[in-house]
């Protein structure tokens, strides 16, 4: 079974974070919210694996790690 990666995994983390912020820069609140929703759906589809998605939901809910499996 593949597991959700919760250790550093992005090359150039600072650059990615800057990209994320700049994607929102010119957007108002409603457009930013819509952007985030689309982004979540695109990433979720890319992951595809239901177990990993379930673990992601639990991780985002800040559940203790042992309950996430």
């Amino acid at each position, binding site marked *: 079974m593949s597991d959700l990666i919760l250790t550093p995994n992005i090359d150039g983390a600072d650059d990615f974070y800057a990209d994320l912020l700049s994607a929102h820069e010119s957007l108002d609140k409603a457009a930013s919210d*819509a952007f985030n*929703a689309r982004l979540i*759906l695109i990433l979720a589809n890319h992951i595809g694996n239901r177990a990993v998605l379930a673990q992601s939901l639990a991780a985002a809910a800040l559940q203790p790690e042992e309950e996430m499996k």
Partner: protein
Amino acid sequence: MNKIFETPMYAYRHSPDQDEAAPVRRKVVVVGAGPVGLGAAIDLAQQGVEVVVLDDNDKVSFGSRAICFAKRPLEILDRLGCGQAMVDKGVVWNQGRVFFDDRQVYEFNLLPEKGHQRPAFINLQQYYFEQFLVNRVRELQQQGAPIEIRGRNKVSAVGTHDTHVTIEIDTPEGSYNLEADWLIACDGANSSLRAMLGKDFVGRVFEDNFLIADVVMEADFPTERWFWFDPPFNRDQSALLHKQPDGVWRIDLQLGWDIDKEREKKPENVIPRLKQMLGEDVEFELEWVSIYTFQCRRMEQFRHGRVIFAGDAAHQVSPFGARGANSGLQDTDNLCWKLKLVIDGKAPESLLDSYDAERIHGADENILNSTRSTDFITPKSHMSRLLRDAVLDLSERYEFARPLVNSGRLSVPCTYDGSPLNSADALDGPSRTRPGSPCPDVPLQDGYLLPRLGGRFILLTIDADAPDMIEEDGIEVTRLALSARDDPTLALKARYLGDAPSAVYLIRPDQHVAARRPSFDESLFRAAIRRATGKE
């Protein structure tokens, strides 16, 4: 236009039962002559079981109501002798379009799986559907089958006993009583029998109203299903356009909760809305307008001794996904062969409890699916609206988002996983035909598989030996021998063999798989037959 739903189809007639001093005892009484009650009655009468249908009305469904009938009910209707008439009259469609705001986001072709005698579904007005069933009842009567429909016979009270049910009936000529060995309650969503038995139930009410209008149009609209999310002509709501036979179109407009129903229904308010949707110059005539709300709920148990509930009386779903009548027919298809065996003393009464187990499983699946559609169509929170709109925006550009768009999921039959009638799966075969599954159709060299299974117990052998017939404690099982050599489209292999070189299936009268193994083993199949008839 003289509409068929305004003409009495089973007018009141005086029955000799009304003149008897003591109540006459009938084998089976069905309450309600809707799609489900009529289906049950035809099924029983075809098996030679005496059945009387009581209905408080004398006409078919007022207005259209249900319009989509899926493949599985059509296959059941084939066994009831009226599938062909429905398919001939119905409209078959595969193309659909989805609109969001002021634009089309995508179009699709359902590309139904090939190799089935029946289409994935047809559109047909419910009043035609019921009319074909009534015609079939008349045909059976002419052949001397023990079936009767009594119009304007309203059940006003029932009494339940260990051995029978007593029924009080109001007619235009006063009331009379009947007794029945068994009563099947198919008296619809507002079932009065449910209330009489004190089994009324609560469920999730969706706070929404939908305006349905059936309009007759001259327009050259294509035979497609169009669904709008948040269109300019119905802001923040949804809309649906669907074709029915005779140039009739179903229009379904979501209205929201706080509305004045009587006002919305007035033609002077309906017509401008429709013009916005169809275009100013489209000529149309209103056939029928109605406003409905819906609930998702089911009874805790469908069987209460000798009173058995089926169809909308037992469970209700939102109309998205067309599961009402479709699942109701699966109820009676599940019930009637069991009831016949119990009446004939060939199976214990407890076999009927498997009806509860299996059809509650089916109802739960339908409620789950239609609730999800409703939650997509009518988002319940700010965030669900945001995600819904994101799915629709993405669906315009990227294919991946399209399966997430949920404007109603096609009604498919449920697999009775975990049913007490199943034997453990002993074949390394396709998952879609594991025990509990409805048999998928297969084209053979000469016709299709499902008509050859018919409505009895079958031992289907594929390149395997077995006796032509087995009898186990009164249950006769007939062999149907097929070979992968007679499999022009390879569908038999794909649907029933997988990688296995041979297979033997025990198939129930409702064409669900009860057991399967790579080869015939007499004692194991005898055990499977006992299990499938509630004997172990």
